[in-house]
């Protein structure tokens, strides 16, 4: 399967300024239902990259392929497979949501009847079913965001590009938007490109993240792998006689360092879950004061990548994960 996005020394020049300076990467796998986060400070070139993928800007050098199709020579094939939710307000005010969506569906290649049916279906899906006969101009900001999402997915695209989808949403609407995005990838197998300033959104939804700075890729993170590796790194603080803990951990294949005063750091090998650690602690009759995973957040990765944080430094004090009453994390 081809990658979702493949950039090969992509350069884009707007006027006299070079915005994208030779980007190269392969992101995602077509049909895998994964989400790619596009991050970067203002002016990094995120929107320009999206617009170049949509064929709005002609590359001044290099090239880009989306789902295996060349953005320069096969723009129709690319656009037929993409759904795009722009950042700005783009809805035509005096048209009802259902008419607007129907038009967008037909322009994407749906037959008229199917477009009307999908317009209703999609509006119900995003929670605008009851408001679907209202003119778009009467919608609140949150409803407009949902309508923009609906027009992006009405034709069931393989790739959905979302530019700041949670902009201006209240916490409940933001949660709903993120749930919809997760459903799009998990239940419907769509690939997502999520461009957002909100690192938390990207962290919650995305499997990969690309960080741009000054028109260049400064970091490409596999968030899923990052999460897995973080889960394996455990910090423990116990009270009681912990002299037998090192041997018990070694027996399980766990690498550990004793820091004194009952503090331990350890890396769980694959196949060893946190439950096993709890069982050893119980067997040695130790009292747990603290048990945390390392949380190398996307914020840290981002700040390191854009140069606001020296490599290896922590951005903020680590926050322990709460231990539930049954001892589970």
């Amino acid at each position, binding site marked *: 399967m081809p990658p979702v996005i493949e950039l090969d020394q992509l350069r884009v020049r707007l006027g006299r300024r070079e915005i994208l300076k030779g980007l190269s990467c392969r992101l995602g796998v077509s049909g895998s239902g994964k989400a790619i986060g596009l991050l970067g400070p203002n002016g990094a070139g995120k929107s320009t990259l999206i617009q170049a993928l949509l064929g709005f800007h002609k590359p001044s050098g290099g090239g880009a392929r989306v789902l295996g199709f060349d953005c320069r020579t096969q723009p129709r094939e690319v656009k037929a497979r993409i759904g795009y939710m722009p950042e700005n307000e*783009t809805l035509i005010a005096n048209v009802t949501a259902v008419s607007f969506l129907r038009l967008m569906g037909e322009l994407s290649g749906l037959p008229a009847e199917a477009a009307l049916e999908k317009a209703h279906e999609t509006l*119900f899906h995003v929670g605008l079913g009851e408001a679907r006969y209202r003119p778009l101009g009467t919608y609140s900001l949150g409803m407009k965001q949902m309508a923009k999402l609906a027009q992006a997915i009405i034709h069931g695209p393989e790739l959905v590009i979302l530019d700041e989808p949670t902009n201006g949403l209240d916490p409940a609407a933001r949660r709903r938007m993120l749930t919809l995005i997760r459903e799009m990838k998990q239940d419907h197998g769509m690939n997502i490109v999520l461009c957002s300033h909100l690192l938390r959104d990207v962290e919650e939804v995305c499997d990969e993240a690309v960080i741009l700075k000054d028109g260049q890729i400064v970091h490409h993170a596999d968030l899923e792998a990052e999460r897995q590796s973080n889960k394996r790194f455990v910090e423990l603080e116990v009270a009681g006689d912990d002299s037998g803990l090192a041997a018990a951990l070694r027996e399980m294949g766990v690498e550990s360092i004793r820091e004194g005063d009952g503090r331990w750091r350890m890396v769980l090998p694959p196949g060893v879950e946190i439950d096993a650690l709890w069982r050893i602690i119980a067997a040695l009759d130790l009292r747990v004061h603290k048990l945390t995973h390392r949380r190398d957040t996307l914020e840290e990765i981002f700040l390191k990548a854009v140069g606001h944080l020296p490599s290896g430094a922590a951005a903020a004090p680590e926050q322990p994960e709460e231990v539930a009453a049954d001892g589970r994390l």
Partner: protein
Amino acid sequence: MAVYKRGYQRYRGELTGRYTRLLALPRFVWPRLIEQRMILIVLIVSLFWPLACIGFIYVSNHSELWSGLGGDLGKFLQIDGKFFRYFMDTQAVMAVILAALAGPGLIAPDLAHNGLPLYFSRPLSRLDYVLARLFTLVALLAMVTLFPAFLLFAMQGGLAGMGWLTQNWRLPFGVFTGFTLHILLVSLVALACSAWVKWRTIAGALVVGFFFILAGVAEMLNNVLEVTWGILLNPAQSLYTVWSAMLGVDAGEGPGAWACVAGLAVLSALLGVVLEKKLRPVEVIS
């Protein structure tokens, strides 16, 4: 199953072709145009003159109605190039008014609401978009130009016989080609004004003003420089010259029909450049 119970499913059926997609835009716009009261009124008023012309053709072909009146009435009631040029002059004015009312609503709202990225992120090129908008307007203007003309020829052909049509083949050719040139030019002007100015009312005024201002400039040039080629800057006068040549009627002083066609082609190209510059999914400020 009710749509609200079904839940969202990705569409996996057959996709339509380029031209079906392109026609979705006119199909979406036409009902909204006809809903506008002013457009409907102008459409109705535009049919008055063709109805009068139909009456004229009827009377002209029934000599028993006026033969007793004597005088030079037979010469006056002839269906010839002059008759059709009068018909075209009036309908052309109605077409400009209609374009001024309908044209600005086609592109200006998309630009004002920043809607072009939604169109161009779909398999629809800028050329497709312009063609779709042009077709919307051309079809509307054809209702007051080409269709009434067709009715007149059908009636005249029916009453005077096919012999009249074969003898005067130049007239239908001239009327249909002349009207096609006219509605294409007027549509381009309306689209360019709509793309240039984001406010519908101002864009509408600009469509009418375009013809008046250029006519004024052309007249001024002719008078100041004591020349006749100034009419090349006046699209209405240029079209009049071209129509007259096609209908075999004297157009008066000034450059010939081919020079006027060249002038109109240059004007159309300039309007195309305006559309090319303005219809971009994103504005780049360098």
